[in-house]
């Protein structure tokens, strides 16, 4: 199953975090920063799979002798994909197919692109509820439920997530709705730390 789906930008600022198990906020942050360190040090042209970050490796390597069944439960695969300024990460168990996960990220990005028409990082900041909605159409509880682009987009549209906040027009101008602006501010301020 899929254990977590993360999106962050080139500076390691999270844009979307979805953990399919309950985790403390601090541990989430630690994991994100560890993965970011790994990702940002990758040379160009290397493969889309990361070695396990220390936080995960500590728990999985110590029990190499565990039975196969248990190993199937351990998150052991970190797949990432880089689009412009954004990194998309999937942490999953070994029961998922690595190549298929790469495709899954591709589908997700394409869906976003379809929803936002030429998506960029700013869209994600101002519209992060839509990110969650899109993800929710694809993955539920760590299990992939839909890989068809059309259906995903239709599902999100049915929820009205994107139509509700017409920030697309305001993109680039930095404006947008009041809510979006507020969020953006919040994001900037706290990212500055």
């Amino acid at each position, binding site marked *: 199953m899929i254990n977590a789906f993360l999106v962050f930008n080139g500076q390691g600022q999270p844009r979307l975090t979805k953990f399919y198990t309950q985790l403390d*906020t601090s541990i989430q942050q630690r994991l994100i920063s560890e993965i970011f360190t790994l990702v940002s040090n990758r040379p160009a042209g290397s493969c889309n799979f990361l070695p396990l970050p220390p936080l995960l490796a500590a728990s999985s390597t110590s029990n190499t002798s565990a039975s196969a069944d248990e190993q199937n439960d351990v998150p052991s695969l970190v797949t990432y994909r880089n689009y412009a300024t954004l990194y998309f990460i999937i942490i999953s168990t070994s029961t998922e197919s690595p190549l*298929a996960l790469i495709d899954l990220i591709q589908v997700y990005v394409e869906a976003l692109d379809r929803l936002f028409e030429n998506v960029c990082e700013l869209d994600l900041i101002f519209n992060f509820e839509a990110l969650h909605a899109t993800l929710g159409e694809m993955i*539920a509880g760590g299990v992939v*439920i*839909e890989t068809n682009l059309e259906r995903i987009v239709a599902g999100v549209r049915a929820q009205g997530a994107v139509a509700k906040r017409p920030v697309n027009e305001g993109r680039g101008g930095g404006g947008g709705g009041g809510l979006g602006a507020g969020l953006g501010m919040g994001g900037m301020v706290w990212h500055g730390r």
Partner: protein
Amino acid sequence: MDIKATALLKLVYLEMVGHDMSWASFHVLEVMSSQKYHQKRVGYLAAVQSFRPDTDVLMMATNLLKKDVAASLPTIIALPISALPHIVTPSLAMSLLGDLLPRLSHSHAAIRKKTVVTLYRLALVYPEALRASWPKIKERLMDPDEDPSVTAAIVNVVCELGWRRPRDFLPLAPRLFELLVDGGNNWMAIKLIKLFAVLTPLEPRLVRKLLPPLTNLIRTTPAMSLLYECINGIIQGGILGEGEDFSAREEVASLCVNKLRGMVAGNSDPNLKYVALLAFNRIVVTHPFLVAQQEDVILECIDSEDITIRIKALDLVQGMVSSDNVVSIVGRLMRQLKASSAALNQETNGSDDLDEANSDDETGAGAAERRRTLDRAPPLPENYTVDVIGRILRMCSQNNYANILDFDWYIDILSQLVRIAPPPRIKDSDADSTGSRYPTDISENIGNELRNVAVKVKAVRAGAVRAAELVVSRMASDISPSRPVVLGALKPVAWMVGEYASQLLSADDTLRYLLDIAPRVGDPEVLATALQAIVKLFAYVAGDDSVLWTRERKSSVSLLMARVIHVLEPFASHPYLEVQERAVEFIELLRLTAEAAAGQAPSTDEMQQDPPLLLTQAIPSLFSGWELNSVAVGTQQNVPLPDDLDLDEPIHADLGRLLAQADSLMLPAPGDDEFDSYYNQRPAATSISSGPAISRLKDAPEEVSSSYQHTEESYLDPDIIARRKAERMERYRDDPFYIPDSTMSPPGGRSTPIHSILQRENGRDLDIDSIPIMQLDLDKLSPPGRATPAGRQQPAAPKPRSHQRVVVVAADETIPGSGVSTPRAYDSENNASDSFLGKGKKPASAAAAAAASTSKRLKQQSLLQITATNLADLTLDESASPANDPLAHERQQREEAEMAQALREVQRLRLEMQRANERIQVAQGVPVEGVVVSSKKKQKKKTTTTTAATTTTTGTKPGTKKKASGKKSGGDGAGEGGEGAGGESASAAAAEGAEAGAVKAKKKTTKKKAESSSAAAADVAAAGSGEAAAPVKTKKKKAKRVVQLDDGAEGGSAP
């Protein structure tokens, strides 16, 4: 509310950035319960992102969730359904299961597929959910008209469940196969193949069926992911290994391997490289020869700049290493390490002096590491370095060094590795997670390897020892004496220089180095070893028999002794006991020797003087003796127990008393004296030593031992001591590692100067020039043809430099354990594993470790992992009834409730019966002799008539009412008669002949009582007889009522 929702949305964003929002959980709940969809959605999002297992408001959300699941708008339904997997708890799962099940047949496909997944997550925490929902899910899966995306979602779930309990899903195979063959969805096909890979081991017939479509897919599919998974499925499903059709199998195998090779080779997509290596890793376990053919491309990957690929390639290489390729593989790895450490050294201090830079790097752990982490662009991450070193060691040492042909090369590698090895992590607060990963310092492992080689391979012992010597000297030449020495390799290395002092190039220098290092050693265990090594070295340096006892020698020896004592002295109060003990022992011993040496006049021209025997004989004899060999793990327990030794027999019949005596009397008096005189009154002892040394010599060593042994013996009676000695002798008679008392031992046992023998045998024929070289020139080293094919135990090593030499790798010594010879049953497991020990491997410890780690693992599980252990306990027999009854779960619940109710009823009735019995007993207390039965009967009737009248009317009503009325009549204090009548009237028709007799007797007693209380006339004999049946019936009825109740319950649940 709108403002609140907006604020919450912002809060969620902040939470994502890392700010805790658990304080707002109640507000989350509030927004969740909003009527407006967009607010509700924000609430649910917040819940998903911020609720944790300990969030207590969750309990309040149950009703809200129930309501939303049952909502009419599909968008609203979707909210709780997709939120549930994140927040579910067992109790929540239980209460929501009933609401979720109907959603499986919702008209919207989106709802259906989300429900399926949610039910799966529910089942993980609450297995019963699966039992209830499985039939429905199966129905959905089997339905060919089902929306394909729902089918795909179900397949995903089935796949997740599949590897947990594959057996349950075998019956689905036909349908799944159908889906695989004509389903167009790649993602689903991948999942199906994965599922089949789990199923095939259980059902071999599937293989034949699967092979055609899989090979077809491999040949035709354009999707790499599907192609890869097909190959992977073939590997994992054991399809390669099974089947009678050899040629077909061969074909598939070569097809797969060729495809994989295509993925790895050349400048293809790195992702494909990675997954192909993954697949090779799986194949190598079962088909190493197939992978070995691809060695060239795999080795390419080791040098890839991508660490992930490198690590995978390393995994693979470790599996396919052999004596033919070990040199080249290790060479590649060494080049990598070398390059990275060179880069590191350059940045550490710009000095070109390699030696200095290296040593600085090794000991200056903290600084180097800090700099490294600051730099943020290490040539190779430390983890990786450690990993690679560990792999090199494992590759080389596996199968008792079967892969190594040239041990000189290996020693070179090892001494190089000691330099490269990153310093051990300093264990501080934040190392909790990382520290556990490398419990032992990698450099200690390297040192251990070096030591193993020295012990096991006599032929290269000299070389190994010299390597150790170099390590020590480099460590000592570290410029900063104040810094603690952290190199873990010191421990085994120090042992080596001590044990094989005779093979050192310069024992004097090494001793000096060790003395320099010792005060800076941090780890007490290392320190203990170092102390021992110091004294061993001293014994070798100073205890040379052949050199004349000249003035110069006298002064140098005493200086040396003074130096050693000076170094040791601080350790006499070391907090670590082992260190303290050794230090104290050696200090005392050396002081004695110092006195002896001082007393011995140096030989002059006219008079020949021998050096003090204590120096030349006694101390060296402490350390020489039998050669130490490597012993397999666990062999100790295999040492046979002599037949005549009974461990259960008390050592002395009255040991307790003796000990008590010793405690109270003996110890204080002689013990104190001895200790005092020995430890505190040293000046007195000095006076003794002014006599000729030879006179003291006889007892000098014994005196040393006496300080430790006699005290023990002083409180034991002589006969006990004698017996103990005899027992000990007996026990160790067969143990080669026990150094017996010289008086008892067979000739040739003791102080053989074994090193001199060794030296004669194999030491000198090594050319001294071949001291381990710092710069490894592997290219030069590796090519020399290994002309001689290597045998396992006695590989003939083609020596690149000098002459041919036969290298013997000593196997671990073991005692072949037969169950009989080891009556010491520590535990059955150890004994069982003994049989393996003959092979010199360590399965026992490995198995134990595995068991331990699994058990530990059950407790601590990894981050992000979900528990599903309880799911495994669930039995999902679909052949059984639940499969037919979609509402099995509800029915079961209802049954349980009814059962509880029935039990309560039974309890109540029993209580009533008991009460009635008590009343009877009271009545019986009254004298009743001579009473006529008939009169009593009549009496009874009278009491009952009133109540009977009331109850008969109600009694005719249906069963449930009956119960109530019966209860009532009992309650209104009419007595057992009334009760009986109430019940009886209802079922008057049921008269049981057989039991009637027995019950009648009881009835008689009741009658008697009734009679005694009231003196009524015997006017109704006939009535009495009629009544006689009544109590019987009540009895019957009570039983029957319960039965009826159950029937009713079941009847009620049936609809």
